[in-house]
């Protein structure tokens, strides 16, 4: 079930009303919200609910064993076993096909055409997010930052419908304390939630999907059919599309969670405003950045052991971060590119005093270049795309609407945040009837821009 759909428009009011009615009685509320979350997840594929339930049981078992283990060594073993199980599931569903394809091709290339077992395995929606959240729970229990939750609470945490399919990656210790006491029905951030839902709908349906349809998909599909002006426009358009698509999803997820009484962490903070790569990763997919920092970079040694080790740790973290997005060399190279930029930038920090606009321009354009690797279906197509950037020819896709959308997406992030925050606050403080009318108008307006085939899935659903 995607947020901008008729199915969700039917699901949400029913779940909201029943959820708040049952909230004072946790014994009723918890099974209800768990059931509702599984119904939401089952809309993608009912079979994958079994996998979700399996991950829940395995990680809860792991966390309880970790807590009960007497010595540190045993705790480590239980954590390692649970994390290995999680990563094994992720590896099987997400990377098996890629592995077989690459290894099979390699073996064939050196004359050892050994047939590897081919399996067609569908990727369960949101699996990468679910696995990361499960890992955060078990590891935080091992670190003593969290007590194992009740099984029902943990099951709700892992499957909670606002974040189950594409994050944000909410850590167990952010969410479980909110489950400990019923949410206060007299103090709900309705205004902020509705404002975020409206903003998310506009970003996803009116901007991201428009840019995908009009510019990005045609050019990235067949770059050879376009010349430099269109290819350059497509690169900028994809930067705008992926931001609006993913941050739009996050806005709706956070907004829906607020309406149910729960608070999720922020996931984006004007990333195209960044003037360094470190700054970019503090603004883009913030919950993934901090997960990679806390559960990969720091355990690897972080920046504690000299320049070379730090560089190695950054490269490993960013390469695996790239691979987390998908089983393709483009994602790996995208991670390597960002890792290399972070490594190169680190010793220069404070030594080179370039003007802010120049630093912004460099970071922004490298980020846009990186998105080409991220979006292209193969490295060959990424190469074809980049080679067309120097091919003179006509600009056939430069419509005022597309150009205005790109400029607006990047431009709004460069503006000082205060005036925009004032507008958001203004909406968030409207009275209920005005909020309802605003929401209806926004849904009607963005709904009118949806093509006959409906709203395409969010980009991050595939991860």
């Amino acid at each position, binding site marked *: 079930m995607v947020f901008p759909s008729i199915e969700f428009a039917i699901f949400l009011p029913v779940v909201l009303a029943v959820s708040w009615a049952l909230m004072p009685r946790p014994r009723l509320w918890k099974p209800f919200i768990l059931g509702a979350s599984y119904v939401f997840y089952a809309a993608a594929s009912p079979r994958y609910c079994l996998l979700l339930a399996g991950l829940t049981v395995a990680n809860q078992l792991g966390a309880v064993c970790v807590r009960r283990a007497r010595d540190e060594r045993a705790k480590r073993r239980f954590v390692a076993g649970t994390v290995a199980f999680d990563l094994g599931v992720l590896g099987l569903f997400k990377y098996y096909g890629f592995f077989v394809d690459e290894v099979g091709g390699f073996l064939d290339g050196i004359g050892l055409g050994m047939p590897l077992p081919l399996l067609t395995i*569908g990727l369960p929606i949101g699996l990468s997010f679910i696995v990361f959240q499960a890992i955060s729970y078990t590891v935080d229990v091992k670190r003593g930052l969290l007590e194992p939750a009740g099984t029902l609470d943990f099951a709700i945490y892992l499957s909670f419908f606002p974040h189950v399919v594409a994050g944000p990656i909410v850590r167990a210790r952010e969410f479980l304390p909110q489950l400990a006491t019923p949410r206060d029905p007299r103090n709900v951030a309705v205004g902020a939630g509705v404002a975020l839902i409206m903003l998310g709908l506009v970003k996803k349906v009116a901007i991201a999907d428009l840019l995908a349809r009009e510019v990005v998909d045609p050019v990235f599909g067949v770059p050879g*059919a376009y010349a430099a002006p269109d290819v350059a426009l497509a690169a900028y358009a994809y930067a705008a599309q992926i931001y609006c698509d993913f941050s739009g999803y996050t806005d709706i997820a956070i907004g829906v969670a607020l309406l149910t009484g729960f608070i999720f962490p922020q996931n984006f903070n004007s990333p195209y405003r960044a003037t360094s790569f470190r700054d970019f990763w503090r603004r883009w997919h913030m919950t993934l950045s901090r997960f990679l920092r806390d559960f990969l970079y720091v355990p690897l040694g972080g920046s504690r052991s000299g320049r070379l080790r730090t560089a190695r740790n950054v490269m490993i973290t960013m390469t695996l971060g790239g691979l987390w997005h998908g089983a393709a060399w483009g994602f790996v190279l995208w991670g390597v590119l960002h890792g290399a930029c972070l490594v190169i930038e680190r010793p220069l920090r404070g030594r080179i005093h370039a003007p802010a606009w120049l630093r912004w321009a460099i970071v922004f354009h490298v980020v846009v270049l990186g998105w080409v690797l991220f979006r292209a279906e193969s490295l060959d197509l990424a190469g074809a795309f980049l080679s067309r950037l120097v091919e003179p020819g006509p600009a056939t896709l430069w419509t005022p609407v597309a150009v205005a959308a790109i400029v607006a997406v990047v431009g709004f992030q460069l503006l000082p945040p205060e005036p925009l925050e004032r507008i958001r*606050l203004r909406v968030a403080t409207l009275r209920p009837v005005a909020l309802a009318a605003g929401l209806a108008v926004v849904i009607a307006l963005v709904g009118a821009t949806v093509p006959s085939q409906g709203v395409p899935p969010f980009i991050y659903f595939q991860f």
Partner: protein
Amino acid sequence: MPSTDPDVPERPTGRALRARDGVLVVAVALALLVLFEGSSVRSAGEEMDPGLERSVVLAVGAPTGWVADRLPFDDAADEALGWLSPDDDLGGGSGFDAPAGAPRGGAAAVSPDSFDPVELGAEAREPRPLRTLLVTGDSLAMPLDTELARRLAEDGDVRVVREPHVGTGISKTGLLDWGKLAKQQVGDLDPDAIVVFIGANEGFPLPGSDGRESQCCGPEWAAAYGSRVRTMMDTYRQGGDARVYWLALPLPRDRARQEIARSVNAAIDVAGEPFRAQVRVLDLVDTFTPGGGYRDAMEVDGRDQIVREADGIHLNGTGAEVAADLVLDALRRDFGE
């Protein structure tokens, strides 16, 4: 109570309201939408594949549609917001009103188009040079459309127009009527060749020859479906000026869908008969599912490779490459290298 736990994220600023206000905001917003867009829920439900989700949406859509039908707001909203729509109005189902089937009560006349002139020792009527190729259909046409466009982009002389319409079908016309769309595509693009790959969303009831609805997938349904396909083929071939390449469906994994696919393929075969001089039905069944047995993988470039998506319906990138080979071979036969 708001949590005082330091790990809990900070709540965004804004007016704090009661939970019932939150429910009220969502409910009032949806009530307003029912007044102005109520029929959309019903239409969306009618277009969905059978199942629980469809039943729920239709259960909500029936009363909301009923309300919207009796008030003037729905039409007013459509008129006010129509300019925002990226599509032309191609729904409604009138595009197949005059099927190119046999006249009732008598045998259809055999037309010269029923023969491939070469088979009869006559000279083939030379097609127009291939300048514009339209690749269309439902989600099955993806990523075949991109694969064909990439390969033909290499020589640069052929303009490939990709027009997949995801979620649509010939047996459902509420949101998109393929009869109308085919005419519009021909009028707008004047394509020299058309590749059609459609059939992932079929199986909806169709009006039979007696005017009553026939359920998939018996002869009545296949005849009705075939008539629609024939209408489209006739539109696309543009009186014999253009060539049409209609791809039969490789069988899907699911048995219920296999039954639909077999019926669709039989209908496509029969539909193309009167236009054999211009319409080529490309058989993907033999290539991907020989003997009628579904398979995920087959030998491509000397080794076994997966050719189907995990859903067991669509072709994946490798499968699309194989299908593109077949289409390009057929194009070469008609248009030369």
